[in-house]
């Protein structure tokens, strides 16, 4: 069974000039952003698939470099909750 491709970005032709102005994007920029995100979404790990491994730096409690690295595969045996984001 294939999962539905879930994207919350409406097609550009459904957006008014006011919508675009509010997003501070031109219609072309919006279209490009949406297509790029759809393309990336197609490669997102599917439910039940093995989550891709990665090894990146841990940050210290005060948000600074720790010099220590975290590897996802080391968490096997324990469930993991991930929250992705940035400041802006």
């Amino acid at each position, binding site marked *: 069974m294939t999962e539905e491709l879930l994207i919350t970005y409406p097609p550009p032709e459904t957006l008014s000039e006011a919508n675009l102005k509010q997003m501070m994007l031109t219609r072309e920029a919006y279209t490009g952003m949406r297509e790029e995100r759809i393309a990336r979404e197609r490669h997102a790990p599917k439910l039940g698939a093995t989550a891709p491994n990665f090894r990146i730096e841990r940050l210290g409690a005060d948000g600074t470099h720790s010099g220590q690295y975290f590897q996802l595969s080391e968490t096997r045996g324990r469930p*993991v909750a991930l929250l992705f984001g940035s400041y802006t």
Partner: protein
Amino acid sequence: MNKIYETYKDRIEFYLINIREAHPSDGWQVRSNLDDHVEFLEPQNEDARAELAKFCQLNLGFTMPMLLDNMDNEVDVKYAALPERLYVLDPNGKVFFRGIMGSRGFDVDTWLQAIKVQANISGVQTAEKD
């Protein structure tokens, strides 16, 4: 968010992964950030990215462990994460829950439901604080 972490951290590992900026001043600037004076250029190296992550931790007050995606944006690309996204993995490293990409798909309640299921599976029953 901190409450979820504090409630389930004994049974589930939590990680907040800092990825590239969704709305840097030199990218897709948005009105809400301008209104809040949140204006930053996209960091060009890991030090600068860590600096913003520190801001994130101090200003938004997250208590869960934080990780820093590398400058190849490896983890963002692997998980189609930008601008923001939630996942829950089972103890075998399989994807048990994946949120919808983006702020409109960012649904903490469905994430919490998945966390509760995994917390129960992971066995150790502790009294829920709710």
